[in-house]
């Protein structure tokens, strides 16, 4: 299992770093996600309490923004850029092959919690399109085969393999 178990006091520490001002809601959610990997129900409740908002208000704001997730993420996060330059350079082909190989759609996580597949609107490295992020590493001027190889290499280093041997 890769979900970090976060002590309650860490959650508290993050939240208490912010003043009781609604304008802090999004930055607070961003920091929470940084620590937890996702926005858990406890995080929503804590944020709501701190800012004097209802939990549904917090959910409604958080769910509006694509950055926030509400489910645990995989050990590896793969993000395919779906920007124009990447599209023109074949990015959609890379994404659909990743979907096929991992057996999940963007936004989903493999059942072994190994991979989360996602898209990003554009990471601003369009001159190096197509671009894919694997965790924090950006692969530029890439291709489907290179990305699948990189995923396979990670697999080798890690646990079982859903994609290529």
């Amino acid at each position, binding site marked *: 299992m890769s979900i970090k178990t976060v002590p309650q006091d860490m959650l508290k520490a993050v939240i208490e770093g912010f003043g009781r001002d609604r304008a802090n809601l999004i930055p607070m959610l961003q920091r929470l996600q940084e620590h937890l990997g996702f926005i858990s129900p406890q995080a929503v409740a804590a944020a709501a309490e701190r800012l004097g908002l209802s939990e549904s208000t917090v959910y409604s704001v958080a769910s509006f923004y694509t950055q926030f997730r509400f489910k645990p993420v995989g050990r590896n996060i793969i993000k395919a850029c*779906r920007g124009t330059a990447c599209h*023109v350079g074949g990015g959609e082909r890379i994404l659909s092959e990743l979907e096929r190989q991992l057996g999940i759609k963007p936004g989903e996580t493999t059942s072994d919690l190994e991979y989360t597949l996602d898209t990003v*609107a554009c*990471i601003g490295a*369009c001159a190096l399109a197509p671009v894919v992020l694997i965790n924090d590493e950006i692969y530029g001027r890439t291709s489907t085969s290179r990305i*699948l190889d990189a995923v396979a290499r990670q697999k080798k280093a890690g646990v079982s393999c859903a994609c290529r041997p």
Partner: protein
Amino acid sequence: MPPVTNFTALQAESKADWQTLIQSQTPHILIGTATCGKVSGAMSILDAIGMTLDKLGLKATVTQVGCFGMCYAEPVMDIALPGMPRISYGFMTPQKAGQIIEDYIINGNPRPELALCTIGQGKVEGIPTFEEMPMLKGQIRIALRNCGHINPLRIGHYIARGGYAGLYRALSQLTPQQVIDEITTSGLRGRGGAGFPTGQKWQFCRDAKSTTKYVICNADEGDPGAFMDRSILEGDPHSVIEGIIIAAYAIGAAEGYLYVRAEYPLAVSTVKHAIDQARQHSLLGRNILGSGFDFNIHVKEGAGAFVCGEETALIASIEGKRGIPRSRPPFPAVSGLWGKPTNINNVKTLAMASYILDNNAATFESLGTEKSKGTCVFALAGNIRHMGLIEVAMGTPLKEVIYGIGGGIPKNKSLKAVQIGGPSGGCLPADMSHIGLDYESLVQSGAIMGSGGMIAMDESNCMVDVARYFLSFVQAESCGKCTPCRLGTRQMLNILERITRGDGRLEDIPLLESLARVIKSTSLCALGGTSPNPVLTTLRYFRDEYEAHIVEKRCPAGVCKALISYTIVNQKCNGCKLCVKACPAQAITFAGKRQPVLLNEKLCNRCGICLDVCKLDAVAVS
């Protein structure tokens, strides 16, 4: 007006340091470590530089700079030796970088065959100068004036090159009204999309009655395919910060926000660092430079919603709400952030404002066309040789940018279309490339300037697919508040998807056109209002491609999966098996040594991996 202190001393000190740096007797090595550089491996080049210097026992100053604009050649390393112009080397690898350092610095051989160009006074045999380099010829750099020249983390570098002099001039010599007048005279128009006169916008906000006012810098840069704001923030953050402070002084704001997307982590950290530095030098905070003017900037990170680039949505987002636009009026200049008068400007607009205050309005005003003054910045991407960042005078013909600066289309292909202005823009066909790049000409053509993303497309791009792509983007990004945008774009997308699947009908074309009209005229914000533009321009200029999909069930460019098939060109294939190993569907089988492989169309999932891996061009799409 209280006297403004200390700045001249700071400036003199910065200039002296800068002179020492550029005239030093030790070699100066510069390496571009903006995002594009990093993605291409700049950090491993930086390590290689360090190791080589150690190994050779050489002393050199190594400076990390932003992106000079030649992203296609990244990683780029420059070397300046005493008395010589700076030489730029592209396509670096750690080995090459180490070798060049040894060859040039120790043995005096500048390796002209590996160089891109020289920058600065003087000439090196066999290397074109900056002005002779096709990509740089014809560029006039205002917003990009310091990108690639300075270390963005060093405020002194910016000051030495004229930075904060505009702010100093404003605070020490000009009243807020005079600042606005100067911006108005310059003819500066907003570079974030709509092209609204900046001076007028500042004036509205200044005239609004309220003691509390805000300035916001819109660095959301949601347009996919655009990366100029990122480059400026990463390469020259102070030019933007200075612009924000000048705007704040002009309209009378004590607080400002810089809203930057979280997808740009390097830009976020660079900007935060710059703000701290500005504060340390009394350029920000209480009593700026002793003038009595107080001003502070907060950084807000976006959370991944394109619509938050829209002014009223951006304001809602800063307030901690869903980023949903609201109807205007009231305009933000009257009632913006927390109901107070608020001025919002784009990154480039502000970087240009600080230039104008330093260099006076006439220099800026003398560039460009009658109604579009100054320069415009474009991010060149797609199928073009010199991908990267450029800045040209307004009105420069599109073809000069594509063929001259951009170097034309690679792989012997020809230009099919240029997509300008992001999802709100349009696709111009190759035969429109005589048009000038200014607000008026672009609008007339059906595209818009937008924020300056420019994507070149060649024969291998399908225009119906591109239109479908943009609608799927808009559909995913619609905030959902108004029906025409939420459901209308869904409807258009369904039709386009059907056409690309080969199930299109001829009635679909007039249907798309009528939907476009309704969505354009009834959407609340410009996201919905401009979303039909890519469809309308492709219909206007590439109708035959729609017809090929609908009538002949054929995708002429070979893109739309349902309408294409992959085959092996038997004459070209040498049976190397690369594709056999790579094909994830096991659709290709090995037939024997030196014999063409066999592709089973039934198994093929049209992923195109064989096309990627084949070195002999033996895979064909039809």
